[in-house]
């Protein structure tokens, strides 16, 4: 289907189902139950899942295929965001102007930075990209404030030109009148599900770029990039110059990052300079490795994993813990809360750090490997107990 082989088609279908039904899947607990704390099906977090998914998919095209580890991809994220917000300021709130510009500007910067950085390989390349991104961040935070609005972040003011702004036009980001912030809520019994315009817009964009990345992975171009990873010297000896290929991969992944940054500003019309800091670059590296480098779906899983912890675990506090464990006798309740306390709320970093270590120690292939192992385990169990039942799910790659 659409130029995909059978396995990729089923993967694509699984991803389509997952993203389209995410509002249901991510809200498994009733609103008033104690477990509602773990619900992730609210617009902002769902948007973040797919946006960082796009960022990680793009990063994986460079890192997963060519093995070039960029430590400066956050710069493109920031550039994308600034482009979109500037379009809001100059034209109007329709995202249709900003998003293509975000991809384009990120692409131009990627050509320049990539051209220079790709002259070196290995850690020398990593440090070059890091240097460019940190320069962008430091300047955006201070000297370039007239363009970036520095610490506060670039935002739209009432006295901005906004030349195309119509009289009845929405005053928040929208696509031809479909306002990103608007949601549609569905109450089913004790459950509530939120369907948000912005989320579905991002999700459609993600499906598109995910499809694109499958095609890149399976194309002769993708094969060439893998050749760069496995042995660059041998590739050179065959008379091929790997540089144009790696540069193309760098630019494509930079454009993905620009798109992700643009979408961030499309959901929330503010572009902060921290988006370009090395910690943000590091985050996408961690997402990719955590999910499974070089796999199609891994980076998206990694992105979801990190964003889930950042947004859900940081919001659990002692009061909530006491509610959960109120069924226990008093002394025991306090003891349990005392033990869990360091890992939640302000301790969410600690939990994340421990999980990084556990995943990388026990699942060398990242979360995807975990999925594969579970898949195999189910398969082998299914076979031993009932050899006829073949109704097991295909493990995602």
């Amino acid at each position, binding site marked *: 289907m659409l130029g995909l082989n059978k396995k990729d088609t089923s993967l694509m279908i699984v991803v389509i189902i997952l993203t389209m039904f995410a509002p249901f899947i991510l809200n498994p607990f009733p609103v008033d139950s104690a477990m509602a704390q773990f*619900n992730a099906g*609210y*617009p*902002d*977090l769902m948007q*973040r899942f797919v946006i960082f998914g796009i960022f990680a998919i793009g990063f994986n095209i460079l890192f997963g295929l060519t093995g070039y580890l960029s430590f400066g991809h956050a710069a493109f994220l920031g550039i994308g965001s600034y482009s979109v917000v500037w379009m809001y300021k100059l034209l109007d709130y329709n995202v249709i102007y900003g998003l293509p510009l975000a991809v384009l500007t990120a692409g131009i910067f990627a050509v320049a930075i990539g051209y220079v950085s790709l002259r070196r390989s290995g850690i020398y390349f990593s440090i070059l990209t890091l240097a460019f991104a940190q320069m962008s961040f*430091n300047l955006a*935070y*201070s*000297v370039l*404030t007239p363009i970036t*609005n*520095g*610490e*506060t*972040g670039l*935002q739209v*003011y*009432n*006295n901005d030109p906004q030349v195309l702004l119509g009289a009845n036009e929405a005053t*928040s980001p929208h696509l031809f009148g479909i306002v990103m*912030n*608007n*949601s*549609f*809520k*569905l*109450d*089913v*019994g*004790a*459950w509530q599900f*939120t369907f948000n315009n912005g989320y579905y817009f991002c999700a459609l964009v993600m499906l598109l770029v995910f499809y694109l990345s499958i095609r890149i992975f399976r194309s002769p171009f993708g094969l060439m990039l893998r050749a760069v990873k496995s042995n660059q010297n041998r590739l050179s000896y065959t008379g091929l110059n790997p540089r144009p290929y790696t540069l193309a991969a760098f630019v494509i992944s930079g454009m993905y990052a620009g798109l992700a940054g643009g979408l*961030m500003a499309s959901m*929330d*019309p*503010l572009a*902060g300079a*921290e*988006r370009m800091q090395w910690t943000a670059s590091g985050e996408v590296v961690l997402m990719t490795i955590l999910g499974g480098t070089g796999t199609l779906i891994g980076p998206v899983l990694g992105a979801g994993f990190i964003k889930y912890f*950042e*947004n859900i675990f*940081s*919001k659990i*506090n002692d*009061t909530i813990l006491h509610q959960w464990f109120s069924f226990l006798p008093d002394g025991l309740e306090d003891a349990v809360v005392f033990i869990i306390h360091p890992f939640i*709320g*302000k301790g*969410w*970093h600690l939990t994340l750090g421990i999980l990084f270590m556990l995943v990388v120690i026990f699942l060398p292939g990242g979360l995807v490997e975990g999925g594969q192992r579970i898949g195999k385990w189910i398969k082998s169990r299914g076979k031993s107990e009932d050899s006829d039942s073949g109704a097991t799910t295909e493990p995602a790659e």
Partner: protein
Amino acid sequence: MSKSTMTRRGVLKTGAVAGAGVALPTIFTASSAAAYTNEPTGGSVTLGFNVPQTGPYADEGADELRAYELAVEHLNGGGDGGMMNTFSSKELQGNGILGKKVEFVTGDTQTKSDAARASAKSMIEKDGAVMITGGSSSGVAIAVQGLCQEAGVIFMAGLTHSNDTTGKDKKANGFRHFFNGYMSGAALAPVLKNLYGTDRNAYHLTADYTWGWTQEESIAAATEALGWNTVNKVRTPLAATDFSSYIAPVLNSGADVLVLNHYGGNMVNSLTNAVQFGLREKIVNGKQFEIVVPLYSRLMAKGAGENVKGIHGSTNWHWSLQDDASKAFVKSFGTKYGFPPSQAAHTVYCQTLLYADACQRAGTFNPCGVAEALEGYEFDGLGNGKTLYRAEDHQCFKDVLVVRGKENPTSEFDLLEVVEVTPAAQVTYAPDHPMFAGGELGSCNPGA
């Protein structure tokens, strides 16, 4: 079936209540059902406390969180009532707000605009928070304030000192109790004049971002009005940890006062470095060299230890104040947690009480009603004397404290002593003052 008394509505209700088996969906869009964003419908109201829990300001955030929990306890009728007893408005009954029990959710701003907005959004979208408050830096405060304006909830700013929060970036849904850079300058100038005279050469070291710039501008203007000469204004990178290369040029610059427009970790390091270089023992132009830290924070001053002794600055509030309100607050906070509250804790406690009181007086949680109740509101009994929430820019006008690092502290909390309480009139400025110009308050947004 024609005689059935069952209405369609009744069926829906029973269906929703029973919930079991066949669930009947009721469908509505967010905008049509409620009069304003997150209108509380049950017996409780949810507030969102958005403070830094990780990163360099985590301790300040933790102190804010303690004050919030105390405020919620007092609002719900627990504890000794703290400043509710001294507050000039007697609307709050200790039965929650408008009879609804106060509940809260917490989040981590990480002192990053993006993370702070994500956290605030989850409070609004997921937890149904009707008010967001907190924060420990101006960039975050402005970013979250903008978000609350768009989403249609009230934002009660925490610790934010930049002029922009209620200046260029002011918003109709945002309110600030904390003082600002201009007020620091106006309060400090007369004290500096008495101490150091009118013939001084000041050298500014400024953190290179918006808050630093507004404070530098404010302090330089205030001291130049005294007749001081500004020798140089040097911007230092936010990420700088060692300030030696910025301090060294001060030695031979001819300046005899060093103004450190730094906060938090930057302040601790630049002050420590300045003292290391022997600036405090230096005599320039026949005068003793002096250092000024315009914005003091006791929590951070602790990190600089001995180095703060005798150094002047300004602060929003200090636990050693002897008015009834401050004493009541210190007593209930100290009894609960075992140490005195910081200025960050005080300002967020006040903000929570002020918000609750405004809801009570307005008779609604509707942001427009609350904003109207807060605008132009005059109150007393929250530790800062008579205070006005000005309608034009949503900034509180109250006395500002000028403090000095204490020479002989009696305990680890006893680091600062109040030198002077500058009356509110002296730090008041016109709403269209040039340092605050450029923004528009806009109109209140109830969301929905």
